[in-house]
């Protein structure tokens, strides 16, 4: 992690030094960590990948309708960041949040059932893909308005401070959200009130189909924290350990000093914005996508762990088939669950 101002000028190309240097950096980070933690990170990332691939399949089969935004390519961000948290902490996300829910250990069954619009879904079929939620895990959505969750995160963190609860709040949003007003209102509030909150920009380079260079007057988005004298950091969003380390530092700052941090995780989305648009051809080329796919966070991480002798091919195969089974069970659960009834239409609008 680079604290403070980043020296990286261009966001759009992988760092000079290329794959080898990145691998070496990741190996170095891995050597300092507990092997079980390293394996857990891989398992979570692979679960997210297989779950999302299954979502794409189910969408194509017509089992999932509406709008569905997949997380493939960005797994290292949610998994690395959320793993740095404690169970009492809180997580808020944007609408591309299936992966974050799984990273926060939500049962994949009710998540898939929600995507299927079933009554057993975590929102009883009322929210769908963009509204995944589980309060028992401190997983506070799933928000379908760009940046809408950012002020909420300030409030969740405020409550922790007010009630003297040892909770850190982690708020994810895409790079396009930094241009809405409530992002700035919330950062000001968080620093002014000294709130234990971490804002993490998942810079996947595109707000739907528009590159960040066309929508932001500055490239190094974490610099926006400077306007509020807030701590900031840049992490490699394709390196789960870079994310984990960066977050760990910010979590400590929040927990011990009640101070917020703005983090930019530089990542890349391998799929279209949603299932409705192609992965390439309109706003980016096939070649650009292929180049970024070389940075696949799971491939890189698997190589690192193999090179250090922590896992081998047999381990990977076993893990993969175990995960495919878990995802298959989620689909079966969703498939066999009942649809909501007409009576369900008017429930949950008001609390008694």
């Amino acid at each position, binding site marked *: 992690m680079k604290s403070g101002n980043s020296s990286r000028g261009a966001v759009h190309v992988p760092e000079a030094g290329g794959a080898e240097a990145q691998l070496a950096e990741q190996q170095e980070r891995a050597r300092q960590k507990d092997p079980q933690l390293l394996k857990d990170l891989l398992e979570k990332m692979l679960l997210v990948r297989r779950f999302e691939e299954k979502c794409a399949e189910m969408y194509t089969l017509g089992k999932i309708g509406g709008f569905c935004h997949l997380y493939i390519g960005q797994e290292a961000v949610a998994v690395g960041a959320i793993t740095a948290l404690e169970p009492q902490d809180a997580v808020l996300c944007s609408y591309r949040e299936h992966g974050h829910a799984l990273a926060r250990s939500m049962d994949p069954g009710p998540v898939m059932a929600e995507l299927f619009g079933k009554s057993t879904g975590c929102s009883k079929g009322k929210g769908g893909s963009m509204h995944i939620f589980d309060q028992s895990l401190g997983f506070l959505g799933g928000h379908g308005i760009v940046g809408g969750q950012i002020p909420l995160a300030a409030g969740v963190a405020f409550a922790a401070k007010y009630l003297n609860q040892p909770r850190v709040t982690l708020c994810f949003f895409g790079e396009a959200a930094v241009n809405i007003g409530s992002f700035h209102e919330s950062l000001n*509030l968080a620093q002014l009130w000294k709130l234990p909150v971490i804002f993490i920009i998942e810079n996947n380079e595109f707000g739907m189909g528009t590159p960040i260079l066309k929508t932001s007057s500055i490239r190094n988005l974490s610099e926006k924290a400077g306007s509020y004298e807030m701590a900031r950091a840049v992490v490699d969003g394709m390196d789960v350990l870079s994310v984990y380390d960066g977050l760990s530092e910010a979590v400590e700052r929040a927990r011990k000093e009640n101070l917020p941090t703005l983090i930019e995780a530089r990542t890349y989305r391998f799929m279209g914005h949603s299932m409705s648009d192609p992965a390439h051809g309109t706003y980016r080329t096939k070649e650009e996508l292929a180049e970024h796919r070389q940075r696949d966070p799971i491939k890189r991480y698997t190589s690192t762990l193999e090179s250090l002798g922590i896992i081998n091919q047999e381990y990977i195969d076993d893990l993969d088939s175990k995960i495919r089974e878990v995802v298959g069970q989620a689909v079966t659960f969703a498939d066999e669950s009942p649809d909501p009834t007409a009576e369900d239409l008017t429930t949950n*609008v008001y609390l008694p």
Partner: protein
Amino acid sequence: MPQLTYLEAIRQGLWEEMERDPSVFLLGEDIGPYGGAFKVTEGMQKKFGEDRVIDTPISESAIVGAAIGAALMGMRPVAEMQFMDFISCGFDQIVNMAAKIHYRWGAPVPIVIRGPSGAGVHGGPYHSQSNEMWFVHTPGLKVVAPATAYDAKGLIKSSIRDNNPVIFYEHKYLYRRIRDEVPAEDYVVPLGKAAVRREGTDIAVITYGAMVWTALEAADLLAQKGISLEIVDLRTLLPYDEQCVLSSVRKCSKVILLHEDTRVGGMAGELAAVIAEKAFEDLDGPIVRVTAPDTPVPFSPPLEEYFLPNVQKLTDAARQLAAY
């Protein structure tokens, strides 16, 4: 029984809820030492401290959003909008977040967003609006608009205790003009229940907020001319008390729908629809609306007078309807 102004009654309600429940706190612009633009929260920061009466930046989106986040963690925030006109800056947080979180997740969002609305003080286009219908058209919210000091205290307390997001419209014209008997002890006025302010037999006038007083004044004048008005004060606009409305309409067989808000898409339109659907056979005349015209609220005092419904406009309409 002590006499309190409408404003003092709201303050007393907030004060008592702050004393009763430590999870209640206030946030808003200039609500601390300044006491709020209209002094509703005067003295409260001194009593409850800066941690519970919090001055915020001018950031309505963050004010409302932070209130929602705190409510998700079990608190009961009361956010002040300096003027209800400024609530538009926090609109997304209210209609997309607060209103739909329980529906999406089953989680309660017990927040109150309160502030001064309405005209009559020459505030002009940005400090006089009655924009309650923005939120009446949003399932998941409750919308409250008290007319009396007694109700203002009882309703703010009910709103704070309610587990749903409540938008609480105080009428700034009434803040210091209305004074009535307000018990010093704890009481609540239930949400969703209208009040019959005056019994009558000829025409039911359904209204709310400051227009309740206009209607009562008109009723006194018309009584001398032999026309008897029944005045219904809705008190809560969402959910509104349909039974009370229909019962007064059935009793009088004629109805005037009166509000300070503009005409198209106003509360009167909704009430007219429900009356036509459910009490059509009971009507002996057309459903009549007396409302502001479809314009912004003008500043110039004579223009504002043209804009606002008043006793004259209401008595004219009532005489015409009585003769139908």
